[in-house]
């Protein structure tokens, strides 16, 4: 027994001696890779509040079950994760069980992060150790009873969680597999874009087919050419993820933030891989319904409002203007089953993000002060059923609910 301890000590001494010389560059490399993992995973989106120090805790997330505040994940010992070990961190990402066996809520997308490779998680950990520690106490759990009982997540996991690393599909290309890995794993696209079950889990039978959260509807991002992104070329998907704008649409809401902090900073190869993978996915209705006829009373009202208020930018033909005003004709965003995002855009407005390739940051003005619920409903019904578009009508009560 003592011999074993002795030889281990020897080995450790040899290792630490070498660390100062040969391993320092490796470690730097690891940290740089880890930093890129933080971009892929967009940790800052939730864990950094506006104007706050990086990763020192975020703004409250509104879930159907109550509020959760993304915690401080800087290496501060008192209020961050300074006391965590790499094993704690690995376990949190892989199983949703953190330091001291504390169970995380799946607002932290461990059901996606479980697919990450050990190497990527290790690198991410190395990077997080280098972030400036910030003293900022955050009580993540703001949920009401009974959801505030963390142990309840044990049952949730049994029902909703599948442990396990991403398994590549050998029949597909390396690029496709890389894309699938990012989308399903670190990129956790489904956390917003997959519909949710009653328990708030991703509806695994309908991945990436669109979901509602925080007052936005994250659209279908499968290769479906009616409601998904099937009509976009791979280049257009890449341009969207890199710049937030691609002629078809301009990112708004949480996606605008994700583009600014994450996808615009990804390598070109990774963004292409994501596009390749997304184009290959399927889901959602493929048959367009019959559009509501132009003779419909709501359509007539909507047309009048559109021509007064919207057409100056989006064009009489709904074609918009590249980089400045998104096209409405043929837009899958416009034709989502839910008009939640459209309603929000009309009521509150939205501003494009600033990316190195698209600097203009044009904005949709707020029109909620000007249009009644019925008028917003009419104009949305009109744009959803004009120029070849077809989607369910929007009711005035849907608008009122979002004011």
């Amino acid at each position, binding site marked *: 027994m003592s011999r074993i301890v002795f030889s281990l000590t020897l080995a450790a001494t040899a290792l630490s001696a070498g660390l100062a010389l040969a391993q320092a560059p490796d470690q730097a490399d690891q940290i740089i890779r880890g930093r890129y993992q933080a971009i892929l995973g967009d940790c800052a989106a939730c864990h950094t509040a506006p104007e706050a120090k990086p990763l020192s805790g975020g703004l409250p997330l509104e879930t159907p079950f109550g509020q959760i505040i993304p915690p401080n994940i800087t290496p501060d010992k008192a209020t961050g994760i300074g006391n965590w070990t790499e094993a704690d961190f690995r376990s949190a990402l892989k199983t949703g069980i953190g330091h001291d066996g504390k169970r995380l809520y799946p607002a932290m997308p461990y059901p996606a992060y479980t697919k990450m490779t050990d190497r990527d998680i290790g690198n991410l950990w190395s990077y997080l150790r280098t972030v400036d520690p910030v003293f900022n106490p955050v009580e993540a759990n703001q949920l009401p009873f009974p959801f505030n009982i963390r142990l309840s997540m044990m049952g949730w996991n049994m029902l909703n969680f599948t442990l396990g690393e991403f398994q590549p599909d050998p029949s597909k290309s390396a690029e496709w597999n890389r894309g699938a890995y990012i989308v399903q794993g670190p990129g956790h696209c489904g956390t917003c874009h997959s519909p949710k079950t009653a328990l708030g889990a991703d509806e695994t039978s309908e991945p990436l087919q669109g979901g509602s959260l925080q007052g936005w509807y994250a659209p279908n991002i499968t290769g479906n050419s009616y409601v998904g992104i099937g009509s976009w070329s791979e280049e257009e998907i890449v341009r969207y993820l890199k710049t937030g704008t691609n002629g078809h649409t301009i990112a708004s809401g949480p996606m605008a933030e994700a583009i600014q902090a994450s996808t615009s900073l990804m390598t070109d190869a990774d963004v292409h891989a994501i596009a390749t993978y997304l184009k290959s996915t399927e889901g959602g209705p493929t048959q367009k319904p019959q559009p509501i006829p132009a003779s419909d009373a709501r359509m007539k009202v909507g047309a009048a409002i559109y021509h007064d208020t919207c057409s*100056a930018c989006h064009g009489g033909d709904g074609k918009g203007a*590249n980089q400045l005003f998104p096209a409405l004709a043929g837009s899958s965003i416009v034709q989502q089953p839910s008009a939640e995002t459209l309603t929000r855009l009309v009521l509150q407005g939205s501003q494009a993000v600033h990316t190195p390739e698209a600097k203009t940051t044009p904005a949709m003005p707020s029109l909620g002060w000007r249009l009644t619920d019925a008028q917003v409903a009419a104009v949305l019904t009109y744009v959803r059923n004009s120029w070849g578009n077809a989607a369910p009508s929007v009711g005035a009560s849907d608008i009122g609910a979002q004011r």
Partner: protein
Amino acid sequence: MTTILPRKDAVIVGLGWTGAILAHELTEDGLDVVAIERGPWRDTATDFNIGYAQDELRYGIRRDLFLQPAVEAMTMRNNTSQTALPMRDYGSFLPGNGVGGAGVHWNGHTWRFWDSDFQIADHLRDRYGATRIQDLQLQNWGVTGAEMEKSFDRFEYLAGISGRAGNINGRIQEGGNPFEDPRSRDYPLPPLQMTYAPTLFAEVTRSLNLHPFPTPAANLSKDYINPLGIAMGQCTMCGFCERFGCANYSKSSAQTTILPVLMKKKNFEVRTDSEVLHVDLDVSKNHARGVTYVNTSGEEFFQPADIVLLCAYGLHNVRLMMLSGIGEIYDPNTGEGTVGRNYCYQTNAGAQVFFDDKNFNPFVAAGALGQTVDDFNGDAFDHGPLDFVGGAGINCIPSNGRPIQTRPTPPGTPRWGSDWKKATVKSYKSTLGFSSQGSSYPTRGNYLDLDPTYTDRFGRPLLRFTFDFPDNDIRMSNWVSDRMEEIAKAFGGRQYTNTRRKKGWDSVPYQSTHNTGGAIMGTDPKTSAVNKYLQSWDVANVFVIGASAFAHNAGKNPTGTVGALAYHTADAIRQQYLRNPGQPLVSA
């Protein structure tokens, strides 16, 4: 108590066209720059919301975007024998207010002044003799047209100007302005699609052997991405440019061409709602330490800086120099002093033609959508047998058909009541207007100084105008009005009117916000306030950028030349001044 702030490399007073250009250029060199803006922050989506941007009562009549006299008034008189009185409201001209400045509410006419303007004294003396210009205080600007070409080009490409070149590298271009100086390349965008009135104007003037061409416009004829990577949209011709912000990203302004990039820079910051009281000089009076400003809570700050750039509206630049003791204030009796010298304006006149059988749809319009004839502008024609110098562009630019203010009626129509209503219905669509925009040449007695009586809310003296239209300019305008009458007759309408410019400048009716001079550029520190790089002769780390630098005003809108001067100055600072800071770029 004054709070002393951390030092900056450069402080900019006013964030309009020139402030934004200078801020962008200097931050590109890594300078740490702060702009201090008297008015509010303004942004397209929030401030020029498509739902109310075209509110004529709010913006056109109540003048929401403009400087209000409660913030700063000015006093005026026509000559030194009178006592100047404060303008109770702005009328004859309307300075801007807030981020973007007057570049927010302009129409978008974007001209280049000519080499014969920049070297006007030499040019006219050589051509007509010294006695012809002896009553005028005409001076060379210290630059040549060729020297300014690069800067004009940069401003036009920044702003996405729509137009047709008339002279590319000396080759006259069909359909452009044959009288313009050579340019290195065409405009970035083709001309706007013409509406009927300017189309007809072009036909008629061409039949009179004149040379109409599309007015160069900062209303975009096509979608455009400028050299900074900022996208702009095609103009929808809504007819709400002058006095209005553009809701469609279609009119060039600091907002639509520079700010999206500038505001993201870590070495740039703007402080709005903060009014600069004066530039602080050191005891030698030839070095500026920074500026003192006050915010809307009345708190006073001192912002130290190595370079001070006055980029406010030209009139405010002049007043700030006077309030700060930069240079000597001009005295018309002795001709000494330079600050306030050569204040000029614009000598305009108008004509209207009333038709029975035409429909011009005047509401389909843009601020600079029209046709111009330059045959009688500047020195494009021989003044040998005439009794004046200078000239005017003749413009048919029906910029709007707005319901409150655009109500053309023929002479003899009552000003109100049912007959007036009938006449406006009859004339609204069927009236064509065109105007002359005439040069304004300096005289010894037209100048700016500080009012001895009236002060602003901080107790600082108001700016005083002493101005009337010089006899030379009245003769010029009348002669051009004769030419306009010939054009008006050739239209063959039912009747026409011809409103001539008369002596006696009146500060009440709107005329033009083209106030120039007062801190003019030149070659001699005895007769100019700034050198050819717009650097103060007296305080070498102060630059004064704007139409305040114009040694006279041509028969053209000033913004194109103001933008070019901003680039010209920025280049001089970046390429020369920063290598040897604090030193004059031109030795006196």
